[in-house]
C-alpha cells in the first residue's frame, strides 16, 4: 500500500504539478473531475487501511502492556529485570505512540483532502492538494526520514 506522499505525488504528476519543468513552452494541463475521483479513490483505500492498522496497533499496545505487566509481576523481586522491563515498555510505547501520531496526522490530512476533492471544483481542489503536498506532506515525510520525489 502506497504512502500518502506517494499517492499525492502520483496525482500531482498526472496533472503536471510535480517534478521539474523545462524552459520551453508547455501546454497547460486542465484538471478534470476524473483526476480528482482517482485520487479520492486512492485516498479512500489508504484511509480504510490506516483505520484497520490503528486497530492492530492498539491491540498490539494492549498485548504489550499485558506481557510487560506479567513480567513485572513475576520478577517483582528482581530489581534489574524490573527496571529493564519497565524501560523497554516505556521505550516501545514511545515508539508506538509516535507511529500512531503520524498515522493520526495522515488520516486527518486524508479526511480534509477527501472533503476538498468532493466539494470543490477540480482546479481549486488541485491547487489545494498541491499546496498541501508542498507545504506540509513533503516536509513532514522528510522529517519522518523518507525520501520523497525530486
Amino acid at each position, binding site marked *: 500500500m502506497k504512502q500518502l506522499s506517494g499517492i499525492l505525488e502520483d496525482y500531482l504528476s498526472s496533472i503536471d504539478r510535480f517534478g521539474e519543468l*523545462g*524552459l520551453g513552452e508547455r501546454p497547460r494541463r486542465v484538471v478534470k473531475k476524473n483526476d480528482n475521483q482517482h485520487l479520492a479513490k486512492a485516498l479512500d483505500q489508504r484511509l480504510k487501511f490506516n483505520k484497520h492498522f490503528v486497530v492492530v496497533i492498539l491491540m498490539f499496545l494492549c498485548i504489550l502492556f499485558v506481557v510487560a505487566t506479567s513480567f513485572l509481576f513475576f520478577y517483582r523481586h528482581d530489581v534489574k529485570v524490573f527496571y529493564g522491563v519497565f524501560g523497554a515498555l516505556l521505550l516501545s510505547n514511545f515508539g508506538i505512540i509516535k507511529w500512531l501520531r503520524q498515522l493520526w496526522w495522515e488520516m486527518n490530512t486524508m479526511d480534509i483532502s477527501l472533503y476538498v476533492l468532493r466539494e470543490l471544483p477540480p482546479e481549486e481542489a488541485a491547487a489545494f492538494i498541491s499546496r498541501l503536498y*508542498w507545504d506540509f506532506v513533503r516536509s513532514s515525510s522528510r522529517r519522518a526520514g523518507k525520501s520523497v520525489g525530486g
Partner: protein
Amino acid sequence: MRPPISQRIVKPENCVIAFGIPTCAPAFQRHLTLKRDFASNYMLLQRYSLYVISVFDKLKPALLDLGVQIQTDVTLKQFGDLFDGKFDVVILFAHWLNDQVEFDDGFADVPKIVVEIKSGFNGLLDLCVCHPRNLVAALQVERQNLLIKSLYQERATPRLWLYFYVALFTYLRDHQATYLQALEVLTVEMHRKIRRVKGSDKFT
C-alpha cells in the same frame, strides 16, 4: 584582429550566464505577483526552490570560482548590454513561450531581442531556452557575426544544464579549447553517460 569565435580559445572569465528566470525566493515571489509565465507554471515556491533555487545556490559558488560572470534577474536591456564586447560567450537561461523570451521585465519578442544584440558582436550566444527556432533564424539573418548554439531536441531543464555548464567551464579552464570544442566533448560525454544509465536501468 581577433579570430572568429569558432577558432578562439575561450576561458570561463570570458563568459557570462544571464538568468531571465528567478534564482532566489524574493525574485520568484515577485514573478508570481507579476504573473510571469515560468513562475506561474511552478506555482509554489517550495517546488521551484527544490528544482531551481537550491540547485543554483549549490552551483553558484563553483561557477564563480571558475571565473564565470553571473547576471541574475536580467532584463532585456541588461541582456543587450552583455554584447558590448566584454564577453566572448553569452549564455541565456530563460523561458520561451509563443516566440518570446521571458526576461525579468517580462516577455520580449524576436524583433526586440534582435535589436538589443549589437551587430558588431563577434562572439557566441548560447541559448539555454527550449526550441527558440524563430529567434535563431532571425539572428542568423540579422547578426551574421554572431554564432548561436541552441537546443532543439533536449528539454532544457535548469538543473540539468546548470550541472552541464559547471562541467563545461571546468573543461574550458583546464584545456586550451574553443567553446565549440568544449561543447562537443561535453555533449558526447553527457550522451554516453545518459546511454549508460539508461542501459543499466534495463537490467535493474
